[in-house]
């Protein structure tokens, strides 16, 4: 079987500190996968490393059965909200249109059918009415949906989302998770960096519990065990809170 993500012996260090150590995982395609762990566990680092955005050591990183370099136009990335300048002079529709850029060569401009695709993607996330707004005029949840529309426009088979529910109201969170489930059912593989353990069992098919190394990986009911959570979070107080909420 071709794995959506296949990582062997991945290590990342910044100067003297080790962010990820000897991490090996495989994810089958067509799943909604949650990456959980405490702050500083290396969740975002993991995503950036498999995309080849930061220097990393690994014996092998393969995405969708190809090298990370070959696969990169088929991988869509949705950044943390804090990574975007929301005052940037760009309209919602133009932000979605950027999703078509990876398929356009140098010097090529988006054509009418790209604009149509961008509008269709915006429609799918229920944001077509906001097409002409500046991106900063939207709520956190709406902004996240626009970036999801951009990932759709990219027609990628692997989606990587970094903390998509931060600063998002409960209603939008529901809309986003429904969309992600729909995409999963279409056969796409979706990796989500997530910090809220309470919903993890509910949202994801597979969980990867990280703290610089793999603590546990598998179906949520296997991963969300008291001893594993404690191994990842270290703090018994945090562990008590998490388990109460998650049970």
């Amino acid at each position, binding site marked *: 079987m071709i794995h959506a993500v296949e990582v062997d012996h991945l290590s990342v260090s910044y100067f003297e500190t080790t962010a990820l150590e000897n991490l090996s995982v495989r994810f089958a395609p067509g799943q909604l996968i949650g990456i959980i762990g405490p702050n500083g566990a290396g969740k975002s680092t993991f995503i*950036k490393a498999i*995309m*080849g*955005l930061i220097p990393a050591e690994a014996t092998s990183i393969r995405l969708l059965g190809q090298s990370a*370099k070959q696969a*990169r*136009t088929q*991988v869509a*990335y949705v*950044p943390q909200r804090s*990574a*975007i*300048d929301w005052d*940037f*002079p*760009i*309209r919602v529709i*133009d*932000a979605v249109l*950027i999703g078509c*850029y*990876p398929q*356009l060569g*140098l*010097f*090529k*401009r*988006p054509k009418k059918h790209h604009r149509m695709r961008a509008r269709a993607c915006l429609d799918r996330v229920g944001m077509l009415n906001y097409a002409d707004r*500046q991106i900063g005029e939207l709520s956190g949840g709406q902004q996240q949906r626009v970036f999801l529309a951009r990932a759709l426009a990219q027609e990628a088979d692997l989606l990587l989302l970094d903390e998509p529910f931060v600063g998002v109201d409960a209603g939008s969170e529901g809309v986003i998770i429904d969309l992600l489930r729909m995409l999963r059912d279409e056969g796409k593989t979706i990796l989500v960096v997530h910090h809220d353990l309470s919903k993890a069992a509910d949202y994801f098919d597979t969980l990867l519990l990280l703290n610089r190394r793999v603590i546990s990986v598998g179906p949520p009911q296997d991963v969300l065990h008291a001893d594993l959570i404690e191994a990842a979070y270290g703090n018994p107080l945090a562990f008590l809170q998490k388990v109460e909420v998650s049970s």
Partner: protein
Amino acid sequence: MTIIDFIHALTEYDFLQKALVTSVMVGIICGVIGCFIILRGMSLMGDAISHAVLPGVAISYLLGINFFIGAVATGLLTALGIGFVSQNSRIKNDTAIGILFTSAFALGIILISFLRSSSDLYHILFGNVLAVRPSDMWMTLAIGLIVLGAIFLFYKELLVTSFDPTMAAAYGLSTRLIHYLLMTMLTLVTVASLQTVGIILVVAMLITPAATAYLLTNRLSRMIFLSAGLGTISSVIGLYFSFTYNLSSGASIVLVATALFSLVFIFSPRHGLLRKWKSKKKELTT
């Protein structure tokens, strides 16, 4: 002297025509490049590269080559040096900029003082648009066309690397290459602006019209055209004041750009001060 006299002088004096053509071109290209500079948070870098051109100009005089070549070389070397220092030490980017551009500028001052009279240094630093030679005008026009052509061709890449550099890098676009492309254009624009506004004030022509346009629109394409337009208006009105009252051309142009910024800062229908106050009042009453 009235505006009609100025127009009359324009038809009469060849040097004034050249000054006008040159400063309008400078207004346009500074306005266009400036949009990307301010959106990428690189205003300080713009200041740095423009100063770093000075030693290149001096060396070119020394070697008897076109000052354009030396200027681009030292401008780019400084940009590379800033990148190298901030990536290979714990020194932050703005500190690296501060160290390297002042060093380049200081070196330039010493080299120039060996070579030329102080009045030449003064003109390089502050511009003297009324002394534009035909060769200067043609060089400015050529640089203008190259820069505008490059922006047109790389618009998509400049947009995505400014807005979401992580995504750009993720799909395989070299953000570093685009950065140095922009730095190259920045040195070209500085060289083109030497005669009009000079090294010290060119940063104002890069930032002020672009910032004014930024307060007026929410679309990058419109911002670029507005910024070019505001740069042009500043150049023409500034030249008028410079010619009429015998003022420094660079300083006059920059102050006109500042006046336009102040107007927009207060009255902009979208992001102006008055609008902000009004919406705050509304919030308080409801």
